[in-house]
């Protein structure tokens, strides 16, 4: 069962409409992005060919020969749909809402990319300068950015909380030593490190996460150190110690739950900064390698093709919307966890 305090906080959070709805929308978007293949994909959802049904979405590549086409590479389902329609032999194809994936170049011979938004070609936000669908790039880019931010969050918080708690709990020389170490560590300019790494190897998702965790974990330590110091001085910690609880139990079971509000209030802002840093790195060309769908890459394309306003327009709107929602959530959480709401002196 949830403890009453948590329920109170959740109710309080829910009552802050802006934050709550932001949370709902963002969660829905995140959920949708996890199954984006069902909505935004060049592969058909269902192909009915000669009475047999095929579900290509999560399967391997189905070569064109399977459907009586004359090539052995992956079927072009959009063309297939048209062909079935023209032939009218009872075969049919059900395509996703946006029938493009994030990588394919939908290039036409009569015009040069980027193509403007069009209902007819089903590029609802147009294409980028190599003819890739912007909705698809945004959707898959969102999934990667959020995934990146979450993984980054978990890893750097784990390290930060661990070290921070230890510093606050033991204090003394240990604390002093780590404080100095962290101060020194913080002076290493992390952006330069990323640039150097990116120039020597092609950065992958995990190298980027690793580098950013290595330089980002320190932020959390100061807050955790302070809260642990505060909690450690309380009677319940002494009581637990007196009952014979070990250090790890005291920290893990007693102190940590009481500092949770500090951690939780920071989470949304860390996510926002995770998304923003990945976007910034991609924008500068030090992020994930091409052709990974990425907002930063789209943004840099957009700024280079200002004439094609739909590129920069879509991506800026998307970034603003997501960061705004995350900020609203953060604000609501901070309100919800504000201890002043629950004091007896009200």
């Amino acid at each position: 069962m949830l403890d009453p305090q948590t329920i109170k906080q959740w109710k309080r959070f829910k009552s802050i409409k802006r934050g709550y709805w932001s949370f709902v929308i963002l969660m829905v978007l995140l959920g949708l992005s996890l199954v984006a293949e069902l909505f935004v994909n060049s592969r058909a959802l269902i192909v009915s060919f000669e009475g047999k049904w095929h579900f290509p979405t999560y399967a391997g590549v189905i070569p064109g020969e399977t459907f009586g086409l004359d090539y052995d590479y992956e079927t072009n389902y959009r063309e297939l749909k048209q062909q079935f329609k023209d032939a009218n032999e009872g075969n049919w194809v059900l395509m996703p809402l946006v029938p493009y994936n994030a990588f394919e170049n939908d290039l036409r011979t009569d015009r040069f990319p980027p193509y403007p938004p069009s209902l007819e070609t089903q590029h609802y936000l147009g294409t980028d300068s190599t003819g890739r669908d912007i909705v698809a790039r945004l959707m898959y880019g969102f999934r990667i950015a959020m995934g990146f931010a979450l993984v980054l969050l978990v890893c750097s918080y784990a390290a930060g909380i661990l070290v921070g708690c230890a510093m606050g709990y033991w204090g003394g020389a240990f604390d002093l030593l780590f404080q100095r170490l962290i101060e020194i560590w913080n002076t290493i300019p992390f952006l330069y490190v990323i640039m150097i790494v990116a120039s020597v190897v092609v950065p992958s998702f995990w190298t980027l996460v690793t580098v950013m965790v290595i330089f980002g974990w320190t932020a959390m330590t100061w807050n955790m150190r302070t809260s642990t110091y505060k909690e450690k001085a309380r009677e319940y910690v002494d009581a637990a110690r007196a009952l014979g609880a070990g250090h790890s139990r005291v920290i893990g079971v007693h102190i940590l739950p009481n500092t949770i509000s500090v951690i939780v209030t920071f989470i949304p802002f860390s996510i926002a900064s995770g998304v923003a840093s990945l976007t910034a790195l991609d924008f500068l060309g030090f992020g994930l390698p091409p052709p990974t769908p990425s907002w930063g890459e789209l943004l840099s394309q957009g700024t280079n093709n200002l004439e094609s306003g739909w590129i920069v327009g879509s991506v800026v709107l998307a970034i603003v919307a997501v960061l705004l929602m995350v900020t609203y959530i953060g604000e609501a959480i901070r309100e919800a966890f504000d201890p002043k709401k629950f004091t007896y002196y009200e």
Partner: protein
Amino acid sequence: MEIFLRRFRLLLFLVVVGIMAGCSGPDGSIDQNDGGSTENNVSDQDQNEGTDEDDSGETVYVELPPIAVREGDGLPFELPPNLVWLTNNEDPEFASPDAIRGGMYRTWMLSFPLTLRLVGPDSNGAFAGVVRANQFGPVSYHPQTGNPIPVLATHWAFGEDGRSIFYRLNPEARWSDGVPVTADDFVFAVQFLRSEQIVGPWYNNYYTERIRDVKKYDTHIYGVQGADAKPQEEMHYYYGIGPRPKHFHRMSDNWVTEYNWKPDPTTGPYHIGKIEKGKYVDLERTKDWWADDLRYMRNRFNPETIRYRVIRDENSAWQHFLKGEIDTFDLTIPEYWHDKAQHEVFEKGYVGKYWFYNQLPLGSTGIYLNTADPLLSDKNIRLGIAHSINFQRVIDTILRGDYERLETFQLGFGPYDNKSIQPRKFDLKKASEYFEAAGFDSRDNTGIRTRTNDNGSKTRLSFRVTYGNPLHTPRLVVIQEEAKKAGLELQLHMLDSATSFKQMLEKKHQMAWMGWASSGVAPRYWEHFHSDNANVTQTNNITNHANPAMDELIMQFRASADRGERISLAHQLEQIVHESAVVIPRTKVPFTRQGAWRWLELPEWLGTRHSTALFNSQPSSQMYSGGGLFWINEEKKREILQAKREDRPMAKLVVVDETYRN
């Protein structure tokens, strides 16, 4: 974010400087030095800083030693009596007599030069090319006929050994400070470029290994001896070294620092005038220039001043151009020609667009397959890859149909070109045949071909493509998607330009997407394909191609002084390169495109066969003397600016000239 950008700009600057250093080989020669010289420059600079500190303020000037000649080398002590002195005053003039002298031509550069020296550390930036173009050699080449034309020398003669050449200087020739140019300046050039004081190992090596002797016979007559015999037509290019002002340089261990901001006097039309460090450099026309009335020089180099402004970003340079603060802008890139140049200054006819086909050595752009890779050592796989790469689709879409498919590895050297070779085209059927022959006969569930090895394991047909230019990513993603159809996976491996080049020189790549700049009179094969350069690091043989039969032909090609034989050898060599399928030639850009405010005027014939750019303010480009043909019409400038103020449109001007299209 701001910090991000600021740091990014710094890095960009470094990269750009790096690229520029990589692009312009000194005196138009050999790419090979590029990789090495950057590195050398760094260490040299360190050494130099060291000596600065030790220096107690007293500079000790030294005399350079006389030119050392090896055994077996050396020019005769007396001028050979039977020399046949040649000259060329018959070729057509190519400048317009309508040209108007005067005015300021305004252009831009990305960064301020790090030094104004022409040799030594940091001297290989983009701006150095501008200054070098104003340092004439004894002879240049006619931009239409390709024949040698007199410049500092009036006559030349070839020695009997096939590797010596003698020049008779024009007694009128002067440095821009008024001092006459004499044979001493040529002797000094070799002493100077061989000296340690210039801290230029590339020059030291080149002027020791390639140039074997220089002798003065008279104030105005001297001879040069090179390492190998060369065809007479090409001898000036290889051994026609330029002079250095002997009266100007005082050599000391401190030379590099002392001459950092002391520009050499020039023999060409312009010399460095006003400078504001970090902001601009003015090139001023030399008063009463000695060559003003020479047959091939008159009516050229018309602007009185050329201002190179520092604009650190291409986009903002474009804005300056649209405002009319810069006179011309390069429109070669399709986005510029087709999209950005639809701006109203073009539509209203204030700025003209010029598309001019030329005939110059084309860059050897392509995908280079590293045969040291176990899969790529299989010729079937290489052939399969060549048929899986859809350059035509890139050209038709991303490049707007402007660029063309490059047919052979090296092209644009006139008779040396092997025109019988057709490039391999995107052809899934052929690709499939070759891949199947190599054992890649099934596809995995991602659609990529696999081969089942003897031990039962599976190998996927997947390769890394290493490249260093983010501008090429759009082209590569199209190629990547198309290659999937053939069951070939390409992983894009983008690094910064210096690192990617280093990886290639260290042969750590599988497939290298890159291009070699080409220049000169004949293609080069030794550095790219000889087995001496295969499987060792820091050489230009990035395919690790090794073939004894080809080695033999390459050595014959290098040693031959008979042009006809060299041409036939080049054709055979190019055929072997094609058959080996180690290079997939990419695209060529056989033209120059520029936008120019309409007050800049050109001759009726716009440019020459060998024009690198129509609005080229510099005397020579590559090895041809064809620049400086345009002029500024001040009256028209007033008119156009007036029209612009009143928003009155004029006739739109788009010129496409295909006279020299192949």
